């Protein structure tokens, strides 16, 4: 009888350690969110490279367990997940992602038509529009800066800046940024249609000229010197972005460029996605602040897209007839490379099946990456 009660007691203790005994409504809600992410990634192919790791990370992070110092959770010092999460909290995953982005980005479209850079600048209104709204909704300036950067539509930048300005909001900001980047095909087209007329949508742009290798080599060097002299706090992101691009364009470091844009960025994407997902533990994540951040994130994308499209229309007032820009590429000023450029192409083809806008849209798209990194540098400089 004593032995049986011993077994019974042990089973009860074991049961108290299981996920079933420790589950709360919060955990179940977050698991459902993770499953939705995985569904969107597989069934709808919305940014699967991001949503699969993040979605699965949400599942990992929301397996309920008894807090008994077993070093299991991402917030427990010394746990495996916590060690992997340090790349996010210390902010060294994002610059490595930028290295890979630089090594895979072709800046030719931007170099051949440099005025497209200004669209990338205009779309950064999304960041500061969201900053203003976040202040109105009661966040303090450093939190508002971290939330505003969602409007840059650049996951690594959002993680980098929030890890510096508002580490407690980083999980919500990162998930919000990546979610809306995946939802760019849903958010942007209605705004683009609303703000343009048929005549504007049919504008055919001059084909970009062929860019020489020398120009492509000069771009990352001059780009780094100019932007980082202006905003030194953007150095970790811009430095790596332009370094990766020089590896690609120099033509003599092919192996390094291939590693940066291949295995390295893949490894970091996996680690970043899974740890950001796992950081959304219901106990830390399900708060009113997170809901507000999701609301502000959506608004920031709307403002950024609107600003990009309206800026092109305004810019066209000063351009000659032959040099007009199709406002459908204005949305690409938000980073979200290359999804937002792809949206320009798809919406453009709806109105003229022979008007290919992808190459033109890549210009503001990569300018948006530079612009959002510069904006992050400014926010860090002002509020850090």
């Amino acid at each position, binding site marked *: 009888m004593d032995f049986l009660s011993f077994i019974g007691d042990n089973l009860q203790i074991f049961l108290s350690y299981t996920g079933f005994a420790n589950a709360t409504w919060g955990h179940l809600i977050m698991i459902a969110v993770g499953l939705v992410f995985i569904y969107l990634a597989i069934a709808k192919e919305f940014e699967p490279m991001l949503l699969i790791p993040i979605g699965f990370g949400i599942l990992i992070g929301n397996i309920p367990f008894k807090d008994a110092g077993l070093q299991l959770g991402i917030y427990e010092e010394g746990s495996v997940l916590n060690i992997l999460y340090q790349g996010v909290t210390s902010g060294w995953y994002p610059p490595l992602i930028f290295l890979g982005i630089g090594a895979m980005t072709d800046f030719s479209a*931007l*170099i*051949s038509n*440099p*005025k497209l*850079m*200004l669209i*990338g*600048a205009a779309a*950064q*209104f999304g*960041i*500061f*529009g969201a*900053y*203003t709204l976040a*202040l*109105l909704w009661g966040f*303090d*300036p*450093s939190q*508002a*800066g971290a939330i505003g950067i969602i409007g840059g539509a650049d996951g690594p930048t959002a993680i980098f800046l929030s890890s510096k300005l508002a580490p407690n909001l980083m999980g919500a900001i990162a998930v919000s940024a990546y979610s809306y980047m995946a939802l760019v095909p849903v958010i942007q087209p209605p705004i683009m249609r609303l703000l343009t007329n048929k005549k504007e949508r049919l504008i055919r742009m001059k*084909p*970009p*000229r*062929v*860019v*020489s290798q*020398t*120009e492509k080599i*000069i*771009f990352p060097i*001059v*780009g780094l010197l*100019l*932007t980082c002299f*202006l*905003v030194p706090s953007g150095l970790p992101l811009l430095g790596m972005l332009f370094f990766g691009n020089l590896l690609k364009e120099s*033509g*003599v470091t*092919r*192996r390094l460029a291939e590693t940066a844009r291949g295995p390295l960025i893949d490894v970091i994407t996996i680690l970043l996605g899974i740890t950001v997902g796992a950081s959304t533990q219901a106990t830390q994540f399900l708060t009113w602040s997170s809901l507000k951040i999701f609301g502000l994130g959506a608004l920031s994308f709307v403002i950024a897209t609107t600003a990009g499209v309206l800026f092109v229309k305004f810019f066209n007032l000063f351009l000659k007839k032959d040099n007009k820009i199709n406002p459908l590429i204005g949305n690409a000023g938000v980073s979200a490379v290359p999804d937002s450029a792809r949206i320009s192409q798809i919406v453009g083809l709806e109105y003229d099946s022979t008007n290919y806008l992808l190459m033109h849209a890549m210009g503001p798209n990569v*300018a948006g990456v*530079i*612009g959002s990194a*510069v*904006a992050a540098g*400014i*926010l860090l400089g*002002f*509020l*850090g």
Partner: protein
Amino acid sequence: MGIDWITLRLRIKPAITTLLLSLLLCTFSSVQAQRTTSLKINEILVINETNFQDDYGVQHPWIEIYNASAGTVNIAGCYLTNDINQPRMYPVPKGDVLTKVKPNQHLLFWADSQPTRGTFHLNFTLDPVGSNFIALFDSDGKTLIDSVTVPAGQVADISYGLVHDGWNAKRLDEELRLNQSYTGGDKLWIPFTQVTPSSNNFILDKNDKVENFRNNDADGVGMTLTAMAVVFAGLISLYLLFKLVGHVAVTLSHRRVMKASGVSKEAAKDITEQSGDIFAAIAMAIYESTELHDVENTVLTIKNTARNYSPWSSKIYTLREMPNKK
């Protein structure tokens, strides 16, 4: 003539290597110098009657050093002195882990003239009546890192320190010019009635920058205007520069075509300004007419014939040599 070229190349290579090595050495030495130069004399208590006690339970004058950098600095090997003519008066002993000063942290030296009591006990003391010159020299015993002269007539248990940890005259000037809410006065060194050995001279209880925005820009308009102006300034300068670079590149390419083909400027312009679409169409036409392909029937590959040789990318250098069985 050929031999001359080879000799010249053989001479040039060591010269380039030496140049690169020297540059590398210079970089490292400057990094080292930059690290120790971030040490600052931060606070001094000349007359210690009822204040902080050393590890022997005795009150002595003390000198606080502050690491104003974002990296750990080892003060070992540097020299502290109270005589400009004897810069090597007290060498901070090497081999003590406690001489490493973490970023924005402090280290306290006791001016008790009893160096046998430990690493942080100096071999000189301070004059309670007259003025005291105190200097920190780098490990070469010549480079002055920081110095201060504590005026005569110091009061017991009142220290003499920097108004903010690690500040210099330039930093104070910047604060006076740019921060209208700064209330610390225009003096860099001030007396502290509440002494702060091994801790901050000025306690930060809030982020001044954030407070500044909270008080002066509650609706975020100022931030939006300033930041967007900077974003536009950065990208407009890139735009202007690359407009110029593009213009130069196009002009050079016109010249090359004119020289190679002997055509007029207008004809050269027509040739060089052809877009990638035309080249793609030409490639497609060649494919259609000749059915040239190298891998698959539906793919036309245009390969670059340039050889980017490097021993690092050569497979032969990564292969293990076959064992010699002779």
